[in-house]
């Protein structure tokens, strides 16, 4: 009630009244701060109201990660074989490395190994 009365009072005053204007700005800022303060909590996963879509996304992610690693290994091995003429060896080595990279991909996608970032060394 008191709040309402004050607001009505604000509105009746001429807008040139600097003190009232700044008071209203302050109140607006406080209210906006109130609204924005629950923003960062959105990013925490357990407070999301709906089902977490990233779980489904993670499931779909796993499907191709291993294959992609092996494919890249095969492609790199083939190119190295052609360039250096060491025919089966590049393919053999890089297929194995590609398989390892695929397994690493899957482990990253599943969250077993943390995703690599360019973090400064002291933070992790």
């Amino acid at each position, binding site marked *: 009630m008191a709040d309402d009365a004050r607001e009505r009072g604000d509105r009746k005053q001429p807008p040139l009244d600097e003190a009232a204007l700044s008071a209203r700005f302050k109140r607006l800022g406080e209210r906006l701060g109130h609204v924005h303060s629950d923003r960062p909590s959105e990013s925490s996963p357990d407070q999301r109201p709906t089902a977490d879509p990233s779980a489904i996304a993670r499931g*779909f992610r796993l499907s191709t990660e291993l294959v992609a690693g092996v494919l890249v*290994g095969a492609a790199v091995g083939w190119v190295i074989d052609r360039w250096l003429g060491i025919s089966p060896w590049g393919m053999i080595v890089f297929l194995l490395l590609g398989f390892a990279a695929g397994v690493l991909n899957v482990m990253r996608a599943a969250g077993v190994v943390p995703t690599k970032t360019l973090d400064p060394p002291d933070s992790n």
Partner: protein
Amino acid sequence: MDPIHQFEIKKLFPIARIGGMEIAFTNSALFMLIGLLLILLLMLGATSSRALVPGRLQSVAEISYEFVATTLRSTAGTEGMKFFPLVFSLFMFILVLNVIGIIPYTFTVTSHIIITVSLALLVFFTVIIYGFWKNGLRFFKLFVPSGIPIYILPLIVFIEVLSFLSRPISHSVRLFANMVAGHIVIFFLIALTVLISPFVAPVSVAFALGIFMLELFVALVQAYVFTMLSALFIGMTQHAH
């Protein structure tokens, strides 16, 4: 009875001729344009009124904005938001084209690997170029994990590089394969009525309807997965201070 027939590229009319190659306006290009127009209409229609209490169109646009913004902010951090235009465009483009593709008699643009590879490489090169521009040679530290004994370090570096290179492949193959597989499954479920006997129609149509719903869901999820992985990939370069 050819399940691949629905993905065939048809030339509608020629545009230009570069060298010996004919550049034609295909059905793929047509549906890309349709998708683009739909996105444009949605966004222009949504932002024309700019009501405080959003209408139908405006809330669709606002939900998609909030969705992509939340995804990007939570995976790539606030600094990643400078890539928001790219990521949002990717999301809307893939989402609209996936959903258009589900409608019968339309063409699914994202069922061609050349499209998905192009989109994935766009993100890939954006990350590489931006990473080098921002971090310089420190970008290579991405491939060198800390705390590894020196004698297996070369091996680990090779594996990390291959893992990095495999990202655009897994990225593009996932989208392409999901779209193609879903459409072929629907095709064959309906084709069973011709291949076996018309009496299987109730069962096959019921199943096709179920897969159809699943495909609608997959269209959404695949657009989201592509967006999320782009955001994740962009986030890799973001945390350098």
